[in-house]
């Protein structure tokens, strides 16, 4: 059950090149949030943008939540300019959490760029459920890597400045060839092209795989029908990312 709140900014700091960690006070959302869920944010003053913007809940504390973002447009620029004491209007937690309780032994977390955002909270829940964890992170360069509160990290960078030189999905494939990851399940998050590649890899390697999708949203709560993703399920052509996702079994959807 989501809430709508005016949440004070507790801190807003740059944690890697162009990447911000924003902590918002909200005991209620912190308590309700499950990994993979998101909040929908707008400004409380007159500043742009017009619609809310969705962000994964990255981590939660006693009475606050962390969001991780980089500046891509009006919304994230507005968020980056918020200082301690300012407020943001938050709607959440929204969406279907990751299936962290399912029957598996090793969680393989695969994050491309800001796709790492939901992993700190997911890691906490996986540990609580005594799952083994290996985390694959992909970033442009070593300066774009965020790895706090994660476990067993394998890094890939586009420019080879740290870890594997290449995409995060190829780093997973190469690792898989030489390491045993018993009872695996992939949890993927990142840009759509990366998720598409990850989905193919998972199917090829016969690993269960859940993806958290990005995509345009207007409402985030199922009112507008604005966030379709094509399904493989037959009876309905599209599912709604905001309420039936953002996490989906990779076999249930078609990413274009």
């Amino acid at each position, binding site marked *: *059950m*989501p*809430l*709508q709140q005016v949440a004070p900014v507790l801190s807003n700091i740059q944690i890697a090149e162009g990447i911000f960690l924003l902590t918002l006070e909200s005991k209620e959302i912190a308590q309700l949030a499950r990994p993979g869920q998101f909040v929908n944010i*707008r400004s409380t003053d007159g500043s742009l*943008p*017009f*619609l*809310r913007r969705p962000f994964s809940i990255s981590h939660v504390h006693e009475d606050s939540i962390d969001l991780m973002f980089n500046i891509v447009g009006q919304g994230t620029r507005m968020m980056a300019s918020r200082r301690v004491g300012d407020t943001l209007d938050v*709607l959440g937690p929204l969406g279907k959490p990751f299936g962290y309780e399912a029957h598996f032994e090793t969680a393989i977390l695969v994050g491309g760029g800001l796709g790492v955002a939901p992993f700190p909270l997911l890691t906490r829940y996986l540990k609580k459920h005594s799952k083994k964890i290996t985390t694959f992170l992909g970033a442009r360069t070593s300066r774009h890597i965020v790895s706090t509160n994660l476990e067993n990290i394998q890094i890939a960078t586009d420019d080879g400045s740290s870890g594997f030189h290449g995409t995060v999905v190829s780093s997973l494939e190469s690792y898989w060839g030489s390491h045993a990851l018993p009872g695996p399940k992939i949890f993927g998050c990142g840009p759509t092209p990366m998720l598409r590649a990850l989905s193919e890899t998972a199917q090829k390697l016969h690993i269960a795989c859940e993806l958290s999708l990005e*995509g*345009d*949203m*207007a*409402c985030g*709560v*199922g*009112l*507008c*029908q*604005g*966030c*379709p*993703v*094509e399904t493989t399920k037959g009876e*309905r*052509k*599209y599912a709604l990312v905001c*309420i039936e996702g953002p996490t989906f079994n990779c076999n249930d959807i078609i990413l*274009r």
Partner: protein
Amino acid sequence: MVKESFTLRGVEFKNRVLVASGTFGYGNEVKELVDVNLLGGICTKSLSWKPRDGNPPRRIVETPSGMLNSIGLANVGVEYFIREKLPYLRTVETVIIANIAASSLQEYGDVLSLLEKQEGIDGYEINVSCPNVKEGGLSFGTDCAKTKEITASLRRRTEKPLIIKLTPNVTHISEFARAVQEAGADAISVINTVVGMAVDIHKKKPKLSTVTGGLSGPAIKPIALAKVYEAAQVVSIPIIGIGGIMTAEDALEFLLVGATAVQVGTANFIDPSTGVKVAEGMRSYAERYGVSDLGQLVGAMESNKEFSVLQSWL
């Protein structure tokens, strides 16, 4: 105590703020966030005979103070609606308006007649901004004769309130307003979305999969007000004002130019309780200005008639 209610063909609305079709799902999506019983009414997502998948993504684009949508009337279809959605709506203590979309005169009639047999529907709103499949896909709503024909035909099938929702994408909306009044409509909703588009200059493609879509939100409020005002000059049936309403002040502008009630659309995506807040704010305004019945504000704008003819000397 301010009188907020109004009546349409015997159906009483507890206040003058409804939520607009396509912007409030089937009413149950946000029941935990909003007390929907405080709304004057709920217009359902447009219902067609068969379920509709809707358009491929991308369906939504933000624009300055507004958004474009090309949902493609994605909906569960009237049968599923009756089976799965209507039971909840029956428990809600507000007026339920079934919005109907169709691609032929026949389909409009079929959907309405099936709904007529159900408990829990208080009235109909007819979305005529739909392609007329027989006539090559041109919208029914931009064809005055067709709009009138749909109205007359549906009028024969129901004694419940029949509201025709007009498109703004015509030269003279007043012609359409007059035509549907003549054909027996109980009210008109003004406006549906304005045709618009946006382009991704990097991909050199339209942002929406369907090239053009419907513009809504505060950006269109001035247009919507002018359309309501134009329609109000020629019809005596109630007008429901729609377009860019975010606040009670916005809603009051619509009442003053001649709307009997309003619908809140896009604002629900930003704050699903906008409708409730707008109703509240209208009450405060009435109290502040000593207005005992919000109905007194309908069309109460003083205006300099001398200038209406100058409309185009911009």
